[in-house]
């Protein structure tokens, strides 16, 4: 096996001969770039929100606007009532904990299904998450995996509901990678899995007919 490694590297070096120029990954100051982006974004927040909502509407996502925490919970309860949902899974992240959604849903008689046994999340009817970033110009939700943010909550249940706060909004994917690089540069550990979500699961594999919910959630709701 290590033989193949040497063989492959040898063939590459032989093939490239003089071509491989000395190239090192250049240093960019991502921390200061990220600070600048944050300043810019703060000024743009309401524009970004409008753009984000337009893009979400383009990718079959239902957008609900909420003014405060109580509003968020009202919208959530309405949805649960309307869909007659009986079970849920939820991230244990700070903001969601502050909102106390988990306990209120349990009090309302819904069954909580946790990621401790990942296959059981497949039996949950709705997965509730927040987002780490929201990319305005593509309508993309960015979710980072960590111990309180398991990946299958946004994947296995047929409905995914994500809560986006205005401070999550960024302009584009370029902003995202500058911010991520600045965090890595400051010593933050890279997540085992970052996920971009742009609309519900879709396929066009049968005669190019658009069909939603082939593997991931069929319905995506975003509360802003």
């Amino acid at each position, binding site marked *: 096996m290590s033989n*193949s*490694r040497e*063989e*492959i*590297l040898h*063939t*590459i*070096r032989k*093939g490239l001969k003089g*071509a*491989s120029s000395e*190239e090192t*990954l250049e240093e960019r100051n*991502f921390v200061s770039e990220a600070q600048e982006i944050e300043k810019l974004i703060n000024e743009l927040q309401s524009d970004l929100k409008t753009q984000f909502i337009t*893009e979400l509407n383009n*990718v079959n996502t239902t957008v609900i606007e909420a003014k405060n925490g109580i509003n968020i919970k009202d919208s959530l309860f309405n949805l649960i009532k309307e869909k007659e949902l009986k079970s849920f899974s939820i991230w244990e992240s700070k903001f969601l904990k502050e909102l106390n959604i988990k306990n209120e849903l349990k009090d309302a008689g819904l069954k909580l299904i946790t*990621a401790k046994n*990942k*296959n059981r999340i*497949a039996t949950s009817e709705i997965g509730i998450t927040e987002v780490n970033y929201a*990319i305005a110009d*593509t*309508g*993309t939700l960015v979710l980072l*995996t*960590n*111990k309180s943010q*398991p*990946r*299958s909550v946004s*994947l296995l249940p047929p409905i995914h509901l994500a809560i986006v706060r205005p401070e999550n909004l960024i302009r584009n*994917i*370029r902003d*995202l*990678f500058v911010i*991520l690089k600045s965090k*890595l540069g400051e010593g933050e550990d*890279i*997540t*085992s*899995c*970052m*996920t*971009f*979500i*742009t609309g*519900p*699961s*879709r*396929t*066009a*594999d*049968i*005669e*190019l*007919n658009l*069909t939603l919910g*082939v*593997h*991931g959630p069929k319905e995506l709701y975003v509360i802003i």
Partner: protein
Amino acid sequence: MGFEEVRFEKDSDKAIQNKPLQKALVNVTDRFRSARNKASSEVPGWEELRSNVREIKKNTIENLDKYLTLLEENVIKSGGRVHWAKDADEASQIIVNIANERNVKSVVKSKSMATEEIDLNSSFESAGIKVVETDLGEYIIQLAGEHPSHIIAPAIHKTKDDISKLFSEKLGIPHYENPEELTKVAREKLRSEFLNADMGVSGANFAVAETGTIVVVENEGNARLTTTVPKIHVALVGIEKLIPRYEDLSMFLTILARSATGQKSSTYVSFITGPKKPSDIEGPEEFHLVLLDNGRSGVLASEETRESLYCIRCGACLNNCPVYRHVGGHSYGSVYSGPIGAIITPQLMGIDKAAELPFASSLCGACHDVCPVKIDFPKVLLTLRKRIVKSRKLSVKNTKDIIEKLGIKFWRFTVLNNSIYKITNKLLYYLQTPWKESNGKLKSLPYPFSRWTDQRDFPSVAKRTFRDRWKERRGQMG
């Protein structure tokens, strides 16, 4: 399927006679083409973006050894393992061994050209391991025992009715008519496969050297399931899929989705760095990265064709190729079809085994115009043609070639001398009479000219030469 025998002339003939396929090809290529054109026109500085990603790819390929070892270092740092496979057999063996050592009984797979290239499924099957394709298109193809025909839409050659029949036959369900119902059936079947699988195998669209991250782009969510649910995740990645920096992804992802399907962003993009962290509640416990060479390192040796390795597999060249639009993916006898297949297959499998492919192009350059990394297809095709002709010269055994050569010599002789040209023209004008059709075309000439007229008409020889007519016209115009 890996690389099968290339029989372009024969297979393309069959494809052209296949009416449903012809309709499907027009539909898929038209749809993707107009979506791409719209999506690319919405990005300010699209051309600059193309130049930038090409530059990054060029630099990566020209420093491939360094970036590969950097990638290896970072995957290991994140808790993953790295395997190097010099060819298809070794790659299959590595993956099957990983499965056997861990007593894996069933495997789920997300869409990956690299696993098709090494024909991984048959290796699993002969090892007695169940393997299920989970991309809907690939699932359909697997049930039918066929091969993908388009990089992005693998089952595009199958109609709704084909699929309805196939599902009811293979899955024992009633005939469902609409795609929605068929998709629902597949979801249920495949969901239970995911939950019971011991191992997930994916490919990757990109591998980032400086972080050890692999990136998987998709719309269905099956790749997310493949890389999340089973305990073991194996990613098979061609060594050319590398990009140096994390932030390079912003340009590559912007250009990939738009070039492939015309989406601003694909539905799901997963950025996977190693196995689950000890603190994560879920995710695979093991992550294996298998780096696949299978002829790629050999391509580097030619400066003229090296850029074939810049490809990011978006499929835009297929959708814009007038040849692909008529002959479909299966004619190329390889997992890689269309213009990219015509240049990459001969270089990976050996030029003598796929000598027809570089000629399966009109050199119109539509592929070059849309390629996100600006691969100069016409240039590479011509270089490959030259190589093929040269290698044939060394072994002149082909009578067809000798006749063609004599024909071209004769042509050269006549066109270089005006009076000989005139006489020949007259002679041919009368000689052609028995074969001339009422529309003025020559439809079926005797051998050796039948080699031309078997496939297309030849215009008949005019009574007078262009030169004579030109003179006369000039005279009339005074």
